């Protein structure tokens, strides 16, 4: 039941005052010269302001204050149309997520209030065909950056091996593999035997969704490899992040025992997949033995930590870890919301610069991000799977697990740079110690790290 027929004057909104919303308070830097800033609806259009409103709304929902929540939602609904500029669309997605959250966890009053929010709460997630996915991952360097850096590191590490076993744990359903095979095929000493193992069905409920089965995907890859004179063996082992990929690890362990002496290079390529592994902020399962890896003693560590240790136990030739540089693990909703808001504006902004408004690809792209936002904001516990951690924490985890970082060579860096050159001008590359970081307008987006057993 709507209590207000028009937007209430700001000063009437109880009980706190919405912080100054004048444009002068812009602390969100858009340092890149020449790039348009968000065109706003007056003072409401500021991203900062939107963030504040979202934060207040989240607080209201958490404290079950239906009235306040509804008011703020109403405001947000008006200032952030789903077809506005990138900030508005971003805010709209958060708005949606907050509503979903409220609807799930709120009181009756809250639910009633939400009912008024007349939003279409369903997200239309597109299921990609393999060709669509191939062009989708190339829209921005978001994934291509990690692919390029990882391929270069992998190639360097497997030099001289005649058998290369690649374990591809990637959100992008093997989109990295063709270029990797191509690079392997053109190396001087002749193409090796390549074995590719993937975790089948690991992300079947996480976008991007693929409409092809892994068998078919594998067959295409094998065909392609053959066209490059590379012998490829493909294997998809059903495994999921929920249990730390235990079935995959088991398989790899057996393989390792068999092939340990055989001079086979084991490459673990992790591309935006590991952040789905439950970590310390997720309370452990109630099972007595929380260690899914039957071959190891029971442990009190999180699945994420145990998985990395298990990787170390496989004695891999190289491990490449590429993931998004943000922190979504806080148990506090407001912290998470801030973190997500201050990170996920980036994909909206990047897609804004080169894809026109009505383009289907843009819709798909934003729908996928919307899904992630909903997951971070509206879900809790095991359902909240987007558990991004910043690079520093991953680096620490890898070190704790017994790996040492190795830097990317000059060639890798120049390849990445060349690749970035072919995209819009806002993308940049940063080198932080051993690691490479993709930046958009100076902000960290994705990091790429390479590891060897210490």
């Amino acid at each position: 039941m709507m209590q207000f027929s028009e937007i209430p004057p700001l000063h009437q909104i109880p009980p706190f005052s919405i912080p100054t919303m004048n444009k002068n308070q812009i602390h969100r830097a858009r340092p890149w010269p020449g790039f348009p800033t968000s065109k706003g609806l007056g003072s409401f259009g500021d991203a900062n302001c939107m963030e504040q409103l979202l934060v207040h709304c989240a607080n209201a929902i958490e404290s079950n204050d239906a009235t306040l929540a509804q008011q703020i939602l109403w405001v947000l609904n008006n200032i952030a149309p789903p077809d506005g500029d990138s900030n508005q669309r971003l805010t709209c997605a958060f708005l949606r997520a907050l509503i979903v959250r409220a609807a799930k966890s709120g009181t009756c009053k809250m639910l009633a209030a939400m009912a008024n929010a007349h939003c279409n709460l369903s997200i239309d997630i597109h299921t990609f065909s393999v060709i669509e996915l191939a062009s989708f991952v190339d829209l921005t360097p978001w994934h291509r950056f990690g692919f390029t850096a990882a391929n270069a590191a992998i190639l360097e590490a497997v030099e001289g091996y005649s058998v290369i076993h690649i374990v591809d744990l990637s959100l992008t359903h093997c989109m990295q593999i063709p270029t990797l095979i191509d690079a392997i095929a053109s190396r001087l000493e002749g193409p090796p035997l390549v074995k590719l193992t993937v975790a089948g069905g690991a992300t079947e409920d996480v976008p991007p969704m693929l409409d092809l089965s892994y068998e078919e995907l594998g067959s295409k890859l094998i065909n392609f490899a053959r066209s490059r004179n590379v012998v490829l063996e493909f294997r998809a082992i059903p495994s999921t992040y929920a249990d730390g990929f235990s079935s995959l690890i088991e398989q790899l362990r057996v393989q390792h025992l068999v092939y340990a002496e055989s001079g086979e290079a084991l490459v673990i390529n992790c591309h935006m997949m590991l952040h789905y592994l439950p970590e310390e902020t997720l309370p452990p399962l109630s099972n007595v033995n929380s260690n899914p890896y039957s071959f190891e003693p029971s442990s009190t560590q999180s699945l994420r930590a145990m998985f990395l240790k298990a990787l170390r136990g496989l004695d891999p030739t190289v491990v490449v870890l590429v993931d998004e540089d943000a922190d979504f693990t806080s148990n506090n909703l407001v912290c998470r919301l801030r973190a997500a808001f201050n990170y996920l504006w980036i994909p909206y902004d990047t897609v804004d610069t080169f894809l026109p408004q009505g383009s289907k690809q843009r819709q798909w792209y934003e729908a996928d991000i919307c899904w992630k936002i909903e997951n971070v904001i509206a879900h809790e516990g095991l359902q909240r799977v987007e558990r991004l951690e910043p690079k520093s924490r991953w680096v620490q985890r890898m070190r704790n697990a017994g790996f040492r970082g190795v830097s990317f060579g000059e060639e890798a860096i120049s390849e990445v740079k060349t690749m970035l050159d072919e995209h819009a001008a806002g993308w940049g590359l940063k080198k932080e110690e051993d690691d490479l970081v993709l930046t958009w307008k100076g902000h960290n987006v994705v990091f790429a790290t390479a590891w060897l057993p210490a």
Partner: protein
Amino acid sequence: MPVEVDNSSTVSGDASVSSTGNQNPPPKSAVKKKRNLPGMPDPDAEVIALSPTTLLATNRFVCEICNKGFQRDQNLQLHRRGHNLPWKLRQRSSKEVKKRVYVCPEPTCVHHDPSRALGDLTGIKKHFCRKHGEKKWKCDKCSKKYAVQSDWKAHSKICGTREYKCDCGTVFSRRDSFITHRAFCDALAVESAKTQTNPSSESDPKVQAADSSPRRSPPAAPPPVSAPSAITSSDIRIQSSDPRTVVEEAPTPAPAPAPPPAGLNGSSSSSVSLVSSGCSSSSSSSSVFSSLFTSTTVSASIHPPQPLAPAPPLVGLNGSCSGSVSLVSSGASSSSSSGVFASLFASSTVSASIQPPQPPALTNLIQADLAPSTSIEPISLCLSTSHGSSIFGTTGQERRQHAPPLQPAMSATALLQKAAQMGAAASNASLLRGLGIVSSSAPQENLQWGQAQVDPDNASIAAGLGLGLPCDGSSGLKELMMGTPVFGPKQTTLDFLGLGVAAGGNPNASLSALITSIGGGFDATTAAASFRGGDYTSKDIGRSS
């Protein structure tokens, strides 16, 4: 911070307006000259810091006589000549011109530090514009922006010129996008079908999974085997490979690494080379087969496995099979009669699954028969590797370890004999696997390469083959037998075997037994026995049809 000096006066000779970092530590005085890294200047060089205005000024060199400005010192000198200056004044000062390096005036820039100064004035100008300047130049084709005009020009020249075109018609300007697209594009399958007789080096033969377009050339070979689906269609495609590269590999046996995979690898590569070499000379293709790879490459292929003692079976397997495999994979272009067989064992995965004795024998046998049909028929027995699922059949992994070792350096005859001996022992139906027939029993729970999913898929594959195989790899032969029907009716099978009409009249006893057994219920032992009988040896090999 280096003192910023506005250096708008001439630079020639005099006036090193150098702010040689009086307040900064001097540039590295290391003895080594690090010239190769950009921004690591000669330690003795003079550091010059120009203000942005000066840097971007277009006419820095001014003639003292008439105050005309020039962009370059050389131009200025040329101009000064025209003033007819007396000799003395004309010359530059005699002292050695010190090497100058320049720092970027932007304080936050890494090149602002004298130790990272750039040696070239033009370089620092461009750097400053590119990094810290406004991008005024825009490419109209791709909307990339540039701050330096020469960059923009250079880009415009190549923008859109370097294009990658997929057969499906999509055009890409970036190679990585092109490659990723191509890998998954259905056009790859179509192309592979088309290029099977075409020895184009870049052809991408592809046994297309679901592509059963039988338009394959010469023989009406069964449609290609689609990987995931049952191998109903068995269009063996000889994939063309780049002969050169492949051949080179042949002589290099898989060395040290030795383990089975290595062995496999080695042999496969040799086999690949085999094929390719076969490709290059059509005659050799038949010879390849007739001699059962007795050519050096053959032995080469067989050899490499040798050193890989650890996994003899595999190795051996590779030796012989790889030949076939390579045939397929390397896509001997036209001379692919051998390809038929190669395709038989086609998938590269074959190497994995093919067990030494059995397949080779059979292959040899068949090849022998094939020999005559030199007319290249790029047989369409394509066993797509993808079918690998079967290849990697459940037992694949295990088999590898257990297959009997293969003797080194076998001649074709020896191989056949050995195969005979091995009889059905080999079991691992490498061939069968190759045909994508998977044993439904999945003893190896997950040690299956290429077997993406579990039994349901196997079952379907087997069903697709119309065999309802009772799985288990008791006999590779058996599986082979069972598998062959897949390739069509007997007549077709004959074609597949390269026997054709000509050969029809003179089927080798064991071979015919083989074939008949395929048609009817098949008894592995019988087949094995017939093989063991060894009556296929020279007769088969020598058979010409």
